[in-house]
């Protein structure tokens, strides 16, 4: 008796304590980024979520719902209320309001930063509950511990990564738990909770739903099953009113007619346009070559690439081989919930193979199944009741009732809690005492137990070590603040992004329009609070292609595009000085590809490849490349920094000597490490010359007689 509790209560207390500790670890290991950097929103999409959450908190729900954001996608604007995934914003706003009602004046930013770690603790609890339904509470605790630290999930839920996935994975796992519970008990109470949480999950992952589920092809299968269930219920009703033979005839005819009718209706509706055909993103999941050919913008996103085996191992470590083992063990029992687990495992592993991003949905089921496998193993090898030195009689009686283990026997481990009352578990002998040879002996030798036990403890230790290491090195970078290590080991923080955005915020007009590649749209809107042309919500391919075209064109063509879109500043990312490889010159090919998709006559990808088919900068760059404003802006004044000939440290190339001249853009700001460069688009010339002529005049060149005089840039004068 410990703490005056009996064994059952002790086990319950232990479980609560262990779950609490797991939750603490789950939260704790996600705080690396805060400890290293500071409490700041990460990456790209989270900045939009943060901006909308701020809007929701300060202006209220109705205003948020009707919000038309005219400061993005200039001049088109964006209907935020109808296109946003409201789940995460509403969740943080509710937390914020509750805390403020209790007089905790917490800033909304801190709530947003810490939301994902908080929900990861909930996910651990949900995984526990789900696994309890599949095996027992010892497997549940293992699953909770796994999902708490598995890098596959941490990658999307570190502090500051304020994205839909942060809460959606919890909702996913919890909805599945409620669904299985409802399935097992057949109770409407659990069914209602399932529906409620399903709604919540949809709110976190899907924008305005409306009638979409009835009108797109993606949803037809689910809708068909729903219809089938109605038919099934109807048939059951009819059966009670008819004789068997009558029913047989009616049943067959009915099945046949309804199948034909439904199928032809589906085909008809699809062709007549009532049901939208599959969307591009969906196609790219099945026909894996589709995206590359038709929608470069989908293929260009790095998280839409297929997954090679190292990423699987990196994100799941030893769970990856426990996953098939656990799936197999599920087959041995094969109740309804096991069928669900198996199906989930197969589909999730397929989708995770197609897209790196979907690793996230695979991780929960991997944690659950590997917890099942490992827990069976530990059950077998830690079960002291089958040790050989026990008296023969006792051993037999215990083997035949493997599951009704007596708790007093080993109250130390929570797994022997008496709530384990499953029947028909795989290890119990199916054939009772009739047969002479026993089916099941258990593990007899203490050395066998020791070896296996030590081995798996070692595996678990390595697993924890790996997870912590991955979290700390790979997934905790906010990507708006970079860190590098000096030769002496000192830490050096590179804060160029925020420097540039802050400069924009303080030094430009509130209504200034900023052109940049779409990756930085949300950050500019969130941190600099300026109007952007395109952002990470890539809904309008044409507009993005226009931006790509402007950046890929020579100055005169680009100037016209920039003027037409009222652009005041152009912002680019340049990593050449520091060796930051995620810069715009490396992304440039995608810009060109996307632009070529819409403007095949104006932008041609092959003009950016030299004779040897290489994409190069420096001396070997093609003339088109060298004349593009992206190239000019990137290397503007760069040679002068080195006092002659500069080297690009990302591409490892020496640049061609000589000054880069620009007449339509002027350098406005360049950050400390040259990562962000901002250029101002010059105004029209005061006396109606072209900017090229004006620049020539400044340099003391005489204007040749007979040169055509026209206001604005001259078109079709490309070299």
């Amino acid at each position, binding site marked *: 008796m410990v703490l005056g509790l009996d064994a059952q209560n002790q086990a319950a207390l232990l479980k609560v304590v262990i779950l609490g500790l797991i939750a603490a670890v789950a939260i704790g290991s996600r705080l690396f980024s805060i400890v290293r950097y500071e409490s700041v929103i990460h990456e790209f999409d989270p900045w939009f979520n943060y901006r909308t959450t701020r809007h929701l908190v300060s202006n209220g729900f109705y205003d948020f719902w009707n919000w038309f954001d005219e400061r993005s996608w200039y001049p088109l604007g964006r209907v935020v209320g109808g296109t946003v995934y409201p789940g995460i914003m509403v969740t943080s706003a509710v937390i914020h309001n509750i805390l403020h009602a209790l007089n905790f004046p917490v800033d909304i930013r801190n709530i947003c930063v810490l939301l994902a770690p908080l929900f990861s603790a909930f996910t651990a609890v949900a995984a526990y509950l789900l696994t309890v339904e599949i095996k027992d509470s010892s497997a549940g605790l293992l699953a909770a511990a796994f999902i708490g630290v598995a890098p596959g999930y941490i990658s999307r839920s570190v502090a500051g990564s304020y994205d839909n996935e942060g809460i959606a994975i919890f909702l996913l796992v919890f909805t599945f738990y409620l669904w299985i519970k409802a399935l097992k008990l057949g109770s409407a109470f659990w069914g209602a909770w399932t529906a409620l949480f399903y709604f919540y999950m949809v709110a976190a992952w899907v924008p305005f739903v409306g009638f979409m589920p009835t009108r797109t092809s993606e949803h037809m299968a689910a809708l068909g099953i729903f219809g089938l269930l109605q038919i099934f219920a109807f048939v059951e009703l009819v059966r009670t009113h008819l004789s068997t033979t009558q029913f047989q005839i009616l049943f067959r005819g009915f099945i046949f007619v309804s199948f034909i009718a439904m199928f032809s209706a589906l085909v008809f509706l699809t062709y007549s346009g009532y049901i939208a055909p599959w969307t591009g993103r969906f196609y790219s999941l099945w026909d*894996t*070559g589709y995206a590359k050919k038709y929608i470069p913008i989908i293929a260009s996103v790095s998280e839409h*690439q*297929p*997954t*090679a*085996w*190292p*990423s*699987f191992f*990196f994100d799941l470590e030893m769970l*990856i*081989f*426990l*996953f*098939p*083992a656990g*799936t*197999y*063990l599920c*087959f*041995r029992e*094969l109740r309804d919930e096991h069928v669900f687990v*198996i199906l989930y*495992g*197969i589909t999730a*592993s*397929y989708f*995770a*193979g*197609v897209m790196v991003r979907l690793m996230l949905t695979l991780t929960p089921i991997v944690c659950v199944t590997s917890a099942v*496998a*490992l827990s*069976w*193993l530990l059950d*077998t*090898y830690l079960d002291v009741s*089958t040790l*050989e030195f026990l008296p023969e009689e006792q051993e037999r009686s215990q083997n035949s009732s493997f599951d009704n283990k007596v708790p007093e026997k080993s109250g130390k481990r929570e797994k022997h809690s008496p709530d384990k009352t499953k029947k028909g578990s*795989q*290890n119990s002998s199916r054939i009772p005492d009739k047969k002479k*040879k*026993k*089916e*099941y*002996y*258990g*593990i*007899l*030798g203490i*050395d*066998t137990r020791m070896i*296996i036990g030590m081995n798996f403890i070692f595996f678990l230790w390595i697993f924890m070590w790996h997870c912590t290491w991955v979290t700390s090195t790979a997934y905790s970078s906010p990507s708006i603040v970079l860190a590098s290590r000096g030769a002496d080991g000192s830490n050096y923080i590179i804060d160029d992004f925020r420097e540039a955005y802050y400069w924009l915020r303080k030094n430009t007009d509130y209504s200034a329009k900023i052109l940049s590649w779409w990756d930085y749209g949300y950050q500019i809107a969130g941190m600099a609070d300026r109007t952007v042309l395109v952002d990470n919500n890539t809904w309008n391919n044409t507009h993005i292609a226009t931006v790509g075209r402007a950046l890929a064109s020579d100055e005169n063509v680009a100037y016209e595009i920039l003027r037409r879109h009222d652009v005041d500043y152009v912002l680019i990312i340049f990593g050449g000085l520091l060796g930051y490889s995620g810069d715009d010159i490396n992304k440039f090919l995608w810009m060109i590809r996307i632009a070529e998709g819409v403007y*095949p*006559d104006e932008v041609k*990808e*092959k003009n950016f490849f030299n004779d040897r088919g290489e994409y190069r900068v420096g001396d070997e760059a093609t003339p088109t490349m060298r004349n593009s404003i992206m190239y000019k802006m990137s290397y503007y004044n760069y040679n002068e920094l080195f006092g002659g000939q500069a080297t690009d440290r990302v591409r490892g190339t020496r640049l061609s000597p000589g000054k880069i001249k620009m007449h339509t853009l002027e350098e406005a700001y360049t950050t400390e490490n040259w990562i962000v460069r901002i250029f101002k688009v010059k105004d029209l010339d005061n006396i109606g010359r072209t900017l090229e002529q004006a620049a020539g005049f400044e340099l003391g060149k005489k204007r040749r007689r007979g040169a055509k005089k026209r206001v604005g840039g001259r078109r*079709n004068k490309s070299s």
Partner: protein
Amino acid sequence: MTVKKFAIFFLVCLIFATLRIQYSSAAKPLLLDRKLRKLNEQVQKHDGVVELDSDLFDEFLAKPRNYSFVVLLTALDSSINCHPCKEFDPEFRLVARSWEKIGTPSRLFFGILDYQNGREIFNKLKQNTAPSLWYYPAIEGPFAKDVSEPDKYDFSNRGFGAEEFASYLTNHLGVQVPLKRPPNYFLIVLSVFFLIGALAAIKLLFPLVRGVFESKNTWAAISLVIILMMISGHMWNHIRTPPYVTTNGGNINYIAGGFQNQYGLESQIVAILYGLCAFAVVSLTVTIPKLEDKMKQRFGWES
């Protein structure tokens, strides 16, 4: 007001003048007419395609040309053994045939120049690989655009499919280039036949193979194979088609460098290793406890 009238008069004069200029150069249309007639004869004869040799190539591409011309430089002779040429040839002819049936006549022609008949042209265009495909836009006439430079079709980027080729032409011409792939009746009949055969076989054999279908182990095996294939990066191989292995001076490289990279064999090795590990875990849990004494359990061996 007289100024205005004068301006209108001047404009009318100008229009007439330009018209006259067009009419006056009467020799040109004659030449064009002859060329077009010749081309159309060829098209009629060869199912939409113009068979070229060096002389015809020069003649049809010479200056008065109000039509676009797309030329396939190919080498179909068996001595050269150009596999992609043979692959692309039917696709090219398919697009040509579709255009002949549906497209605007005398606007675009499809020419084929075999290496046998046009070595000079190959040399002139500095082509030493086949197939290569060139698009020559119309220089004059109503279909002419501002670009007059020939454009080379990029096979490595676009591939050898007729659909890609048609969409390429659509981009250049600015009108939809139709593509009607004739249904492969043989394949349809064959697949229907096999479908019916398979259904019949299932119907007949069902009592025999029923055990296989209803066995848990079948489904478990299928599921595990799918899962193992997926987690070892099979989809990546499918999409990126890496080499199976590479050799480096006689040594075989099994493992590809880089984090997002792998070889075909590498992923298979990984799948097998995962399978072995999973098997070990399962047998430790399921098989070993069924062995009857300590020694057997230690070696996992049932004599």
